[in-house]
């Protein structure tokens, strides 16, 4: 019995409750009565994975189907991983304590480039060959989805099939396909998967490269393999499945609250933002449904907080009504409402104040850039006046803590823009001094810009690591302000993220070799060792700057070009041009269609419940 063996080793590891399952609302279906069995595998630790919304949706959705089941597995923390290897305990699912190898499908969620080494580590812990081509007839299919599937190529060597776009419909199609083709050979089954809309099977293509390292040709080897893979999209979110009885972790996890997905997509059009493209168009849920979802979720979980999740919750068309009624209904029993993504304007502060009737939180604003010029370049349609009036309103309403997020290394950035960040923070600090009795805490988070596929900046060079460090030094030297804390992202981490984010298939050997050298939990600073990757790049004869610091041209075949997000390349390029001209592009909800192509391309439409 695996559970008995675990009892012996779990006293030796940190946070053993990560590995014991049996949580409230966990679903364990009778194994032998199920036709296709899938395990959701999250390549980070339990507390991170259990905070992930997509996993909750798929878990509820698949388990609702009478013929299918889905269980869960997370990356064991290094202390546990080591013990599992020593004691020959394979990576298992938390529901039935079965090795991952016994499932038909193992589905990884790819949220972040620095978790890729954990995917390999988890496969290896599960005793499944890490390389797709080495898997046998009996091995499970290893599939992957999530935002990073929009550039699947760096993981093409390890993943049998990617789901691109909204997973709800595709995953059910995929499980039906697996059920239907059980008798066929693995290669036949793989080819059949490629027929499903939104599924990409990398083994069915061959790549050729030019002397300069760019892609010469991408060839589809089988008739089933489409030249371009179109993203799947749920056109009517309001009627889509939503899990109102999610698994409730015993451990404190990152997002330890009831989550309502109020809408999917964001139409603001920030030019650095990948999510703003790949989740288009905005599709809202109706306030009536959301209120019922809140009631049901609180009742089934006992959480004391409801989070209204989306890319930009203040943009939800019925936000006022929704917040007011949630606070009225659930506030008296001490249940709070959280707004995780607020814009830096007075309207958002008004919403936050509404929420504040129950519970004090810190306010977070993301001006992203320090000058109006640069904010126009990135199409962050927020003015200094907006930001200052938001802060004024926040201080007047009694907030004593504010977080501000900026990016360093955006295209066209100069020293003036760095000064702009410092000046803006100083102005906010001065405002606070005038308006607050006690000196408020101002926390400034600075991330390094990493250009992402499917954005207008996908062709742009990223700052080198030296440049990142210089910018950091400049801010630290010129931005000494009392009671203001600056917090920087790790430049080596951002650099590696940059390599992989716009990487091609050849990075597979780099990820493999880095993992073999010891890379895992790269997103955790205490475990990240850039040397593993530097050595692996060198061994593969690849130049990191080819991926990070190089400006790409319009004619270049980008590794992710074949993934059709629905937004046209012409639109992205035009947005890039407008960025360099400092021209902003308005939100199509307010100023009419801006021709991004999504609606006609995917046969969908903006779905705003409160009207345009």
């Amino acid at each position: 019995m695996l559970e008995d063996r675990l009892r012996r080793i779990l006293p030796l590891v940190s946070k053993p409750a990560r590995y014991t399952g049996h949580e409230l609302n966990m679903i364990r279906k009778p194994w032998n009565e199920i036709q296709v069995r899938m395990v959701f595998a999250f390549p980070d630790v339990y507390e991170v994975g259990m905070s992930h919304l997509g996993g909750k949706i798929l878990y509820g959705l698949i388990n609702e189907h009478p013929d299918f089941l889905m269980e869960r597995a997370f990356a064991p923390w290094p202390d546990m991983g080591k013990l599992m290897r020593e004691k020959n305990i394979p990576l298992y699912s938390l529901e039935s304590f079965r090795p991952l190898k016994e499932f038909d499908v193992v589905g990884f969620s790819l949220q972040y480039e620095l978790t890729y080494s954990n995917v390999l580590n988890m496969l290896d812990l599960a005793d499944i060959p890490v390389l797709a081509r080495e898997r046998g007839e009996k091995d499970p299919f290893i599939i992957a989805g999530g935002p990073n599937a929009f550039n699947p190529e760096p993981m093409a060597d390890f993943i049998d099939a990617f789901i691109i776009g909204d997973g709800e419909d595709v995953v059910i199609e995929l499980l039906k396909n697996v059920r239907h083709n059980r008798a066929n050979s693995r290669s036949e089954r793989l080819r059949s998967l490629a027929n499903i809309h939104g599924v990409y099977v990398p083994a069915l293509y061959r790549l050729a490269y030019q002397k300069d390292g760019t892609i010469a040709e991408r060839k589809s080897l089988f008739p089933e393999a489409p030249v371009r893979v179109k993203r799947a999209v749920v056109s009517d979110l309001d009627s889509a499945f939503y899990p109102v009885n999610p698994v409730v972790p015993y451990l404190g996890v990152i997002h330890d609250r009831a989550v309502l997905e109020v809408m999917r997509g964001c139409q603001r059009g920030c030019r650095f933002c990948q999510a703003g493209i790949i989740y288009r168009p905005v599709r809202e849920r109706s306030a009536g449904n959301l209120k019922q979802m809140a009631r049901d979720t609180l009742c089934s979980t006992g959480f004391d907080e409801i989070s209204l999740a989306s890319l930009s919750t203040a943009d939800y068309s019925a936000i006022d009504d929704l917040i007011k009624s949630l606070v009225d209904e659930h506030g008296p029993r001490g249940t709070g409402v959280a707004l995780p993504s607020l814009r830096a304007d007075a309207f958002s502060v008004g919403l936050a104040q509404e929420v504040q009737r129950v519970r004090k939180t810190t306010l977070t604003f993301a001006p992203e850039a320090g000058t109006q010029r640069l904010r126009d370049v990135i199409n962050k349609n927020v003015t200094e006046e907006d930001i200052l009036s938001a802060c004024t309103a926040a201080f007047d309403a009694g907030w004593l803590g504010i977080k501000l997020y900026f990016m360093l290394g955006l295209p066209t950035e100069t020293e003036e823009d760095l000064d702009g960040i410092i000046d803006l923070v100083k102005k906010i600090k001065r405002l606070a001094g005038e308006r607050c009795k006690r000196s408020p805490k101002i926390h400034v988070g600075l991330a390094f810009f990493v250009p992402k596929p499917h954005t207008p900046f996908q062709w742009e060079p990223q700052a080198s690591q030296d440049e990142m460090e210089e910018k950091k030094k400049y801010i630290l030297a010129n931005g000494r302000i009392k009671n203001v804390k600056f917090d920087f992202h790790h430049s080596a981490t951002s650099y590696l993220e940059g390599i992989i984010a716009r990487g091609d298939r050849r990075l597979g050997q780099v990820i493999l070799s880095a993992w073999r050298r010891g890379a895992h939990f790269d997103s955790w600073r205490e475990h990240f060792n850039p040397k593993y990757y530097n050595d692996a790049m060198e061994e593969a004869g690849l130049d990191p700057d080819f991926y990070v610091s190089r400006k790409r041209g319009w004619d270049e075949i980008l590794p992710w070009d074949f993934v059709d997000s629905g937004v046209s390349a012409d639109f992205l390029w035009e947005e890039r041009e407008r960025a360099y001209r400092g021209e902003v592009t308005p939100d199509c909800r307010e100023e009419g269609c801006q021709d991004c192509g999504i609606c006609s391309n995917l046969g969908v439409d903006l779905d705003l419940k409160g009207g345009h």
Partner: protein
Amino acid sequence: MRWRVQYKKGPVIRFLSHLDMVRLWERTLRRSGVTIELSRGFNPHLKLSLGTVLPVGLWGKREYLDLELDGDWTIDRFRSHVSQVLPPGIEIGNLRDIPPKTPALMAAINASVYRIAIPKAWTEAAFGTVDGLKQASEIIIVRSKDKKKTDIRPGIIELNLIEDRLGSELEAVVVVGGPQAVRFPELVMALADFGLPEEAMTDYWREANYIRDGGTFRSPLED
């Protein structure tokens, strides 16, 4: 209205920490619809408090919880509401109302009973260990928190080995709280030093908690 509830923390959730247990109870009570008083302040919490910390890795047969109810609740109605929404591993035992001034569980409970299951093959050795410990004038262990050498003999109130068909159960009654307190890992260390290593223990749990007054032991539910 202040109530005291006895519950079982079952083996499947033995690895939950004290904080996890507080969270578990808050959520269980919120789901149940039982109205509990809220603390004041910006972060209102349900007014409930758990008894002495049960170490991570142990399950407990008779653990305790105090809470302050808002409104009129009968024992039957409370029980039927809560028992419908209990998470795996939790069972509710006896419960009763207690006078408002009753000392908090954390302060009142001063003795715990631990049990350790021992297979047949080790039972012989276990008898030796128990005799050895009983005869020892001092039992020196190195405390894990500050690496200090400490004599835990004064904190061991009773030690017994109960033989059964499958092997035996070692029962240790120890002091909790105060300078003589014996923590469970310290007990395990002492047993190992006296010839009973951890691999000889197939299971361990806390059997009961008591309020001890000289030679008398009463349950937290007794007056």
